[in-house]
């Protein structure tokens, strides 16, 4: 699998290296995963010269995006929409080494050219707002509390000339709560030259994409200045990776309910003594490769190749052992990679293309590439007062140690106690933290940013824990579903150019009673008024004995009552009643 990844990079660089004014390249790589899953990575890439970009002369490069970038002085842009969770234990390393994926929700980071931080913030604001309009995502909610300026985790992937390099500002923002869905896919496809009408992009379809167990859409725009060339190029790479559950995807769209199969279709373990017509021990189907075909998985077959993809690379590749039967529709040529598991198909420009893998008993599997690091993050403790975060980082490699940067960007209401940050390696306290960058949160102004460089020796586990306190917010600062909790962005782990993201977390905060404002104002004020009254009554009024006070006081009240009586009786108008009443009162 590593060679596959390298191959992907080679492909990428090969085309980026080309000096043609502008070109376009697309490729779909299919890779069966255990158990009965399929990873499909779509890759679309096009270059344009810097000059033509400057002159707003767009060919393959999407104009809408290009203008935004120019307007916001953004030199390099990375935008991610992700959903679900990559199961590294059983699926191995991530596609593109995790370089083309983000944490759950939306993640955006960009290098903005600006003189000062304030200017950079302004342009960042412009950028997020424009993008949120373009991609129908609430990117405009990436405000100062959600923006960080990572120091160690991200490096510019493009070649920038030194003049621009020093006043480039890296800004990074995440929206863990954003739910990615079709409204984000449609504008994404619009940016493609073939607009999802032809070529591999014709397979993309919201129903399938968002039923995937894991999926990630990415857009990267970066300049490339190959050495020895005066003219730089601007490269845009769009990728979509998804992990499809074969059984789920194969269900017809009109009847997606997993009804129990008929008794006769049930695969039973007949070796069991009790096996009978009404008793069945389900057979473990792990040994058997499940059959599937493109049209089954994606709902329809591939509509020819995209005519704009002029680079003669094979648009569809699949990564299975050569022993596996693969049938294609007519007019497609298969190129096998002699050593390895890759085989690619050249498509006829017109005419449907379909790919079919039948059921097959085959033990040989394409090997999984072991990830460099397993990362798992979870909350510890309970109650809504305080808690802790525990990140378990395991280096599976028996030989080489891993040096990586662990980055957390937390909301301000999660008050991190840095002095409780502890890293235990295999249960023992050892100094594994090499370097740390920490920017504490400011209430309602900015979030916490923590970057830790850690070195894990071979074949060992580091457990990173820290405590935090849950702030209680003003009642206007809670979302409508306050009792669900707040989503905490995934931690980003960077190992060279490989990056891993943990799952996001759900942080429940203590909630006030949202129906109380008036009662609270009334009751609190009452208590204050009472004690104020107590004290100042004592201070301003003088003491007298009861008997002295009585006379004066009672008479005063009587007079009051009499006056009131007059007024009332004025309304009643029975003069006689009035006189005797006043008598009676006195």
């Amino acid at each position, binding site marked *: 699998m590593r060679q596959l990844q390298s191959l992907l990079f080679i492909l990428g660089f090969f085309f980026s290296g080309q000096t043609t004014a502008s070109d376009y390249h697309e490729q779909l790589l299919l890779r069966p995963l255990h158990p009965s899953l399929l990873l499909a990575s779509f890759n679309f890439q096009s270059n344009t010269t810097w000059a033509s970009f400057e002159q707003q002369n767009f060919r393959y490069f999407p104009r809408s995006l290009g203008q935004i970038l120019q307007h916001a002085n953004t030199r390099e842009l990375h935008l991610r929409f992700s959903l679900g969770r990559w199961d590294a234990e059983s699926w191995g390393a991530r596609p593109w080494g995790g370089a083309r994926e983000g944490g759950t929700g939306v993640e955006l980071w960009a290098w903005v050219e600006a003189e000062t931080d304030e200017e950079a913030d302004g342009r960042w604001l412009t950028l997020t707002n424009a993008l949120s309009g373009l991609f129908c995502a609430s990117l405009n909610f990436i405000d100062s509390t959600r923006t960080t300026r990572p120091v160690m985790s991200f490096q510019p992937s493009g070649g920038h000339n030194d003049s621009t390099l020093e006043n480039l500002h890296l800004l990074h923002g995440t929206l863990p709560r954003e739910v990615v869905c079709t409204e984000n896919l449609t504008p994404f496809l619009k940016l493609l030259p073939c607009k999802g009408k032809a070529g591999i992009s014709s397979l993309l379809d919201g129903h399938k994409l968002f039923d995937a167990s894991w999926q990630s859409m990415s857009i990267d725009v970066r300049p490339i200045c190959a050495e020895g060339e005066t003219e730089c190029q601007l490269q845009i790479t769009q990728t979509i990776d998804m992990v499809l559950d074969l059984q789920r995807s194969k269900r017809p769209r009109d009847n997606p309910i997993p009804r129990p199969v008929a008794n006769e279709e049930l695969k039973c373990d007949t070796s069991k003594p009790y096996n009978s017509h009404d008793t069945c021990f389900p057979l473990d189907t792990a040994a058997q490769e499940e059959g599937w075909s493109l049209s089954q998985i994606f709902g329809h077959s591939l509509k020819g190749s995209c005519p704009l993809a002029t680079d003669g690379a094979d648009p569809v590749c699949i990564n299975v052992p050569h022993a596996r039967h693969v049938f294609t529709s007519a007019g497609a040529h298969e190129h096998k990679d002699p050593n390895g598991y890759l085989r690619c198909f050249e498509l006829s420009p017109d005419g449907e293309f379909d790919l079919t893998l039948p059921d097959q008993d085959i033990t040989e599997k394409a090997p999984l590439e072991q990830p460099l690091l397993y990362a798992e993050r979870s909350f510890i403790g*309970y*109650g*809504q*007062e*305080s808690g802790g975060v525990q990140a378990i980082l395991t280096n599976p490699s028996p030989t080489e140690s891993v040096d990586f940067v662990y980055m957390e960007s937390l909301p*301000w209401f999660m*008050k*991190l*106690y*840095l*002095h409780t940050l502890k890293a235990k390696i295999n249960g023992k306290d050892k100094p594994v933290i090499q370097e740390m960058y*920490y920017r*504490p*949160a*400011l*209430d*309602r102004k900015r979030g916490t940013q923590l970057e830790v460089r850690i070195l894990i020796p071979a074949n060992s586990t580091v457990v990173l824990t820290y405590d935090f*306190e849950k*702030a*209680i*917010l*003003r*009642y*206007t600062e809670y979302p409508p579903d306050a009792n669900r909790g707040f989503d905490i962005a995934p931690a980003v782990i960077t190992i060279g150019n490989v990056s891993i993201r943990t799952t996001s977390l759900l942080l429940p905060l*203590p*909630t*006030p*009673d949202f129906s*109380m*404002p008036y009662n*609270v*104002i009334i*009751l*609190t004020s009452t*208590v*204050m008024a*009472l*004690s*104020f009254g*107590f*004290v*100042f*009554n*004592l*201070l*301003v*009024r*003088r*003491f*007298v*004995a*009861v008997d002295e*006070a009585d006379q*004066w*006081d009672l008479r005063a009240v009587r007079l009051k009552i009499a006056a009131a009586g007059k007024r009332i009786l004025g309304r009643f108008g029975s003069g006689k009643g009035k006189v005797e009443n006043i008598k009676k009162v006195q």
Partner: protein
Amino acid sequence: MNIDRRKATLFGAAAAVRLLLFTGFPGLPDLLTARVEISTPVTSFKRLQEGLYLYNHNVSPYDGGVYHQAPLLLPLFALLPSSATYPAFTYLLYIIVDLLSANALMQIADSGEAGSSKLYTSPRKDKKWSSFAIAAAFLFNPFTIATCIGRPTSVFTTCAILHAISKAVAGNSFTSMFALSFAAYLSMYPILLFPPLALLCFDRKRPMKGQESVYNFVFGNAMAVAGSMYSLLHMSSLITGSWEFLLSTYGVQLLLPDLTPNVGLWWYFFIEMFDSFRNFFLGVFWIHLSSYVAGLTIRLRRQPLFVIVTLLGIFAIFKPYPSISDTSLFLAVLPLYRHVLPLMRYTFLASSTILYATLLGPAFYYLWIYAGSGNANFFYAITLVWSLGLSVLVADALFAVLRDEWEVERPEMKGKEIRQI
């Protein structure tokens, strides 16, 4: 001599109890540190640790939302071995601070200022508790002990205030003023004690040549406070390298950005307050808090010490971030006026209310935060009751003292039912 032995045994016992609690129940200190009734955002020991950590790693602790305490505490605790590895030193420090407070309290009690000040002598003044008993009441008050175990920095304020008073009754005004400004420097609100304290100093100062007027005297003291405040603040700005700590320490007390629950009235009020009125009510609350000073000082001119006592009680209720350590301070100085206790009418009521609140508070907090079966109103209601109980106690003490004064004017009124007009 005999007194000294008793005092030694008392202090020894108090220290022993605390040490026992510290060492015997290792989980206890951290447990109590986490209690909202004991540590507030501006006094919490855990936050202090955080600030210390940042300070030691050259991150400005004031460029963050966690540490809101005075800068000078940082070098002080930086000198101590870290409490994570050698907690014993921290324990000892806090125990010593408690004992110092108790010592100051004894000096105040011995001065007899409570019974008979320069301008007024109570007819009941012989009926008083020995300074020993008062110190014992302070040292073995569960609130004090819990505070000591919980290690909030408010104990330093307590100590400073008590020393300010004790120096004042001893008559050396400058030390007293310095202690006061140190207390004010630590947690701001004690500055409100200046007027009565200055008067106390004035009353107690030794008759010197040439009687100087009150105004000059008070002005001089004000200068002293201002001077020492300035030097302290300047020192801290030198330590932290900037003046940003002002906003993060005193600003927090003024603007209440951190709404962590406590026994006071502010937090829930400002959680539920509408944004447009927040600043207005912040102003109102502060004015309310400071409004008591003038009135009490003028009306009780003859007993400045009692003005301080009452103010301490009022602070314990209406501070932005009160905790039971403030209550323990009030309960420490209240017994000085034991001779007027018989005149109080609601002692039992108030104390049982406070007891109820003390028990129900943690229960309701648990229901809200951990069990999730109650909501915030539970704990809020208890803070209301708590405040009400305390204010009844304060007002009743005030009544008793005023009545005591009044009976001097009209001795025949002893034991008569009275009324105010």
